[in-house]
């Protein structure tokens, strides 16, 4: 009798505990990243070309291998150009050039004929902030306006290894471990030498849009990531972090659009620094980091990395949570993000995927 009562008591207590556990321990399932393919087009197939006379509201630039041009979010090629040597393209301008280039004709988004010329021997580079020319010998840089007139130029004695342009100006990283920051009119604003390594060299650099922050990956033995911020007219290093292994090639460094974070390539993946709290995370990824594209509405970044046998795209949520990725074989690739859609170029195709959390 006493045993039966004990068993009944245990069952009652256990049941109450179970009900309470279900009520309080249960939590809703987290949202998962979903990629919904919308279309894939072959850039060489004329059926995907925009009909003549049609006007595209949005045109997204691409450059893959020896092809460049623009496509629409609806999956139409609005312009395709093949070039024999090298080319440069931005959202509004493009140019192809030869190996002994000294005059570069450039085109605007909708022009089939050149709208101007850049005179100077070297290789041009178009960004969203202007036209630049890297001069012969690899040590000089010039900026031009959108009419092709030279605004300023600067000759250094040592090769340029890294470069960043922003509305605030440009930052140039050199093989002697120096970063020079120029205003949009070519005024030398600051000279920054992060030091801290046996062999100084600036492998990657970025200047934030406001010009208030400068980040770089520098040095060999030992290599480090450095963040400098301007406060009260003075620029000083606010964070530095020695990297696990030296990288010996140019490295991506990129501030987020809101300047809250800075991304940088490492030998084992991607580093992300919170510029306010100075908390740093390294996310292990395979491959060399080539591009970081933000999906602002979703607090997500898409990362393109190049592996020995192709490319990988990774998705990082918030501050440093790897939430997904995929790998594909390709000789050439690019990624671009518009609104909440990811565009992935692979050799001769471009695909669109809608990004969602469900």
């Amino acid at each position, binding site marked *: 009798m006493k045993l039966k009562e004990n068993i009944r008591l245990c069952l009652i207590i256990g049941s109450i505990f179970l009900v309470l556990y279900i009520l309080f321990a249960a939590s809703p399932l987290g949202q998962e990243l979903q990629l919904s393919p919308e279309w894939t087009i072959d850039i060489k197939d004329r059926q995907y070309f925009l009909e003549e006379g049609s006007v595209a509201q949005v045109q997204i630039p*691409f*450059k*893959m*291998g020896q092809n460049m041009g623009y496509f629409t979010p609806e999956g139409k090629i609005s312009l395709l150009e093949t070039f024999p040597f*090298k080319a*440069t*393209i931005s959202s509004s301008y493009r140019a192809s050039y030869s*190996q*002994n*280039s*000294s005059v570069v004709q450039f085109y605007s988004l909708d022009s089939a004929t050149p709208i101007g010329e850049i005179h*100077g*021997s*070297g*290789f041009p*580079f178009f960004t969203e902030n202007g036209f*630049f020319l*890297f*001069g*012969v*010998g*690899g*040590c*000089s840089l010039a900026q031009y306006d959108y009419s092709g007139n030279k605004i*300023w*130029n*600067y*000759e*250094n*004695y*040592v*090769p*340029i*290894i890294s*470069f960043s342009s922003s509305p605030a100006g440009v930052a140039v990283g050199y*093989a*002697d*471990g120096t970063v020079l920051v120029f205003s949009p009119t*070519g005024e*030398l604003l600051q000279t920054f030498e992060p030091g801290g390594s046996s*062999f*100084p*060299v600036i*492998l990657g650099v970025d200047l934030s849009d406001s010009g208030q922050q400068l980040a770089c990956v520098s040095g*060999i*033995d030992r290599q480090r990531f450095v963040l400098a911020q301007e406060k009260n007219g003075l620029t000083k290093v606010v964070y530095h972090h020695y990297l696990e292994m030296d*990288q*010996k*090639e*140019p490295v991506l460094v990129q501030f987020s659009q809101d300047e809250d974070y800075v991304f940088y390539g490492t030998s084992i993946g991607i580093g992300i620094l919170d510029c306010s709290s100075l908390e740093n995370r390294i996310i292990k990824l395979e491959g*060399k980091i*080539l*591009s970081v594209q933000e999906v602002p509405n979703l607090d997500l970044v898409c990362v393109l990395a*190049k592996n020995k046998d192709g490319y990988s795209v990774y998705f990082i949520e918030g501050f440093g949570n790897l939430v997904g990725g995929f790998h594909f074989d390709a000789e*050439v690739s*690019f990624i671009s993000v518009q609104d909440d859609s990811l565009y992935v170029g692979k050799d001769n195709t471009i695909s669109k995927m809608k990004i969602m959390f469900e």
Partner: protein
Amino acid sequence: MKKWILGLTFFILASFSVFAFTWPQTDVTVDSFANFFGQKRGEAFCNSLIFLSPSEVVAAEKGTVLVVTGENSGEMGWFESPLGNSVILAHDDEMISVYGNLQTMDIDSSAKYLQAGRLIGTSGSSGWQNGQSGLEFQIIDTQKDATINPLLLMPQIDFYQRLRIQGISVVSRDGTEYDLRVRRTVPPGRYSLYFQRLNEEHPYSTTVSINGAAVETVTFDVLTKSKNMLSVSGKRQFTAKDVYPKGQKQLLAEISLAQGRNTLNISAKSINGTETSLTYILDVR
């Protein structure tokens, strides 16, 4: 500034006895070069020694691999360096050497240290080149912020470099040009003295004397920064725009011609000491 330049030149020449590079490729002769250091290249000074033909390229001196560029070539969003595929080595005494315009690379970014003579790759056509050319080779002193004429630090080779001084002219401050081949009477005043350069030749130094007194020596031994531009040293720092103003002109000196008879002597020297000179007797009135 002038003392600094003299000091640097002495340092370089003194260093030659204790620290020298070997040729970055084999079988080097006087005909091996497409461009010499200091020559006009594009709108600027050539800051490299550019070899004429593709060849195997080796490390000119033992050193640490600083950076290998070119692996991002063609990727969207990355700039293209006119050096093309290149390898940069760091050596003792804060010197670095640059091997540009490589077509193939025998090392990659995992390489840490190279011995002198180690194969780096083969030169070709990955960078900016005008006409036939191979390796683009630079030697840089990061302590002195100077690019050094690589021929100063290479083993001397027996070759006779032909140098010709021709097409001498003077240009006055108001832009009036006098061709001294046909006219030896000029007004007194200050002038820029030029000769007609030849693309296949380039003197290591030029000296101008008036009435036996040396008034200017321009030496293409180092390129240093003068404000925003690279410059060579003379009585002042001359930029590429000063030395190569227009067409085929090359600056010899900025001179003052006083009333009377002026004996103008111009000499050009190659790096191995070969000298060519020319003398004009000017009637200045």
